[in-house]
C-alpha cells in the first residue's frame, strides 16, 4: 500500500472524527488548509489553463466541482467494494482514469444539450477535467488516507469546493493582473505563478485548523 504523501495532510488527526462538526472541519481543511491545487499541487495545470476569462472560469469551476465530487465518490465506492475485496488494487489507476473521463464526457454532453454554455474549447475541457490530476489525485488519496467512507466523501466534497472556489477567485485576480503594468519579463505565466505562490502562502497559514 501507498504511504501518505510527503505533503502533510493532517488527515491522521481526523480518524477520531465522527460528528457533524468534524465533517465540516474535514471539508474546510480540504478546501483551504490542504487545498488540492495550491498545497498539494493537483490540477495546477487546469488552474492556469482555465482562469484566463472569468466567465469561462465560473463555468469550468461548476463543471469540475461536479465531476470531481462525483468521480471521487464513484471511484471510492468502486475501490472499497470491488477492487479491494477482489485484490485487484493494481487495476485502480486504469479504473479511475476510465471512470473519471467517462463521467466528465457524459456530463459535458448532458450540459451541452441543456444549457448553451459558452464553454470554449470543449474538447480540451473534456480531457482537462477528465484527466485532471485533481480528479485522479483525490481518488488516490481516498484510497490511502485510511478514512471511513463518509469522511472520504466529505474530503472529496471539500477538495472539489476548494478547487472550484480557487479557480473563480484566481480568474478574477488574473483579470485584475491583466490591467496592471507588470514589467515585461514577468508578464503572463511568471506573474501568475508568483501570485499563486503568495496565495499558497496564506493557504498554508490555515494549516493546522482541525
Amino acid at each position: 500500500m501507498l504511504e501518505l504523501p510527503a505533503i502533510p495532510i493532517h488527515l491522521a488527526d481526523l480518524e477520531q472524527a465522527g460528528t457533524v462538526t468534524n465533517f465540516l472541519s474535514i471539508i474546510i481543511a480540504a478546501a483551504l488548509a490542504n487545498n488540492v491545487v495550491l498545497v498539494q499541487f493537483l490540477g495546477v495545470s487546469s488552474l492556469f489553463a482555465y482562469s484566463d476569462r472569468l466567465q469561462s472560469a465560473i463555468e469550468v469551476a461548476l463543471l469540475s466541482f461536479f465531476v470531481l465530487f462525483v468521480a471521487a465518490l464513484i471511484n471510492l465506492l468502486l475501490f472499497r467494494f470491488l477492487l479491494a475485496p477482489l485484490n485487484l488494487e493494481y487495476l485502480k489507476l486504469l479504473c479511475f482514469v476510465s471512470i473519471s473521463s467517462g463521467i466528465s464526457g457524459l456530463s459535458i454532453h448532458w450540459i451541452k444539450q441543456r444549457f448553451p454554455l459558452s464553454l470554449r474549447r470543449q474538447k480540451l475541457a473534456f480531457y482537462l477535467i477528465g484527466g485532471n490530476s485533481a480528479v485522479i489525485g483525490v481518488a488516490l488519496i481516498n484510497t490511502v488516507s485510511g478514512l471511513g467512507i463518509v469522511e472520504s466523501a466529505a474530503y472529496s466534497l471539500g477538495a472539489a469546493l476548494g478547487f472550484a472556489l480557487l479557480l473563480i477567485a484566481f480568474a478574477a485576480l488574473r483579470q485584475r493582473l491583466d490591467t496592471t503594468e507588470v514589467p515585461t519579463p514577468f508578464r503572463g505565466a511568471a506573474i501568475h505563478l508568483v501570485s499563486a505562490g503568495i496565495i499558497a502562502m496564506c493557504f498554508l497559514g490555515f494549516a493546522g485548523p482541525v
Partner: protein
Amino acid sequence: MSNLEYQANQGASLWQNNPVLVQLLGLSPVLAVSNTVVNGLGLGVATAIVFILSCVTASLARKYISYTWRFVWYLLIMASYTTILEFLMRAYYFPLYQELGIYVPLICCNFAILIRMEIQSSMLNWKLTARDSALVAAGFLLAIVLLATLREFVATGSVLNDWQLLLATPWLPEVNQSATTGSVIFSFANLQPAALILLGLIVAAKNMLDSRFGFGSTAEKETVKPVTRARVTGSL
C-alpha cells in the same frame, strides 16, 4: 505536421517551447516533488520513461484508435505504463517511491504527455514520435531539475543530498536508504509556495534571456501604453 517542419522544429521543445516553463503543462509533479534534486530527478526520469513509451505506443496504434474516444485511449495507455512503472519502482526503488508518494501514479494524467500524444503521436510514425517525445521529456526533466536544484540549494546550501536513493536496491542492500534531513538554512524554499514563486522567477528569467539573446521571444509585447497628458499650449 510535415517532416520538414518537424526537422526545423526540433530542439524547440527543449527551451523555446518547453512544456513546463512556457506551456505550464504537467506542473503538479514539477511543483510538488522539486523540493530536492533527488526527488526531482527520480520523478523526471520516471515521467520521461512513461512519456516516450506512451507516445510511441499511441503512434503505433494510431490507426486503431477511434477519433471520438482517443483521449480515453490515451489516458488508458498512460495509466497502464504508469502502473507497470509503479510496480517496478516499488520493487527496486522503494525509499524513493515512498518519498514521491502519490505523484508516481499521478504521472498517468500528466497533460504534457497527453497533449503531445494528441498533437504528434496521432500524426507521425513511431520513430519521429520517439525523437520528439524524448525532446519534450528532456525539456520536462530540465525544468524539474532546474527548479529542484534552486530549491534545494536555497533551503540547505547544497545539492544532491541523499543521492544514494537514486541507486537501485539490489546493488545497495546495506546502505541506509531512508532520507536524511540535511541542515536547513532557509526552510521557506522547502515549502509549497516557494516552488510556485521560484518557478515564476525562473520563467521570468527565461523571458529575460530570450528577449536579451533573441531566441524566438515568447514574452508578450507591451500592451499598456500610458496616455500622455495633453495640454493646451495656445497663448493668451
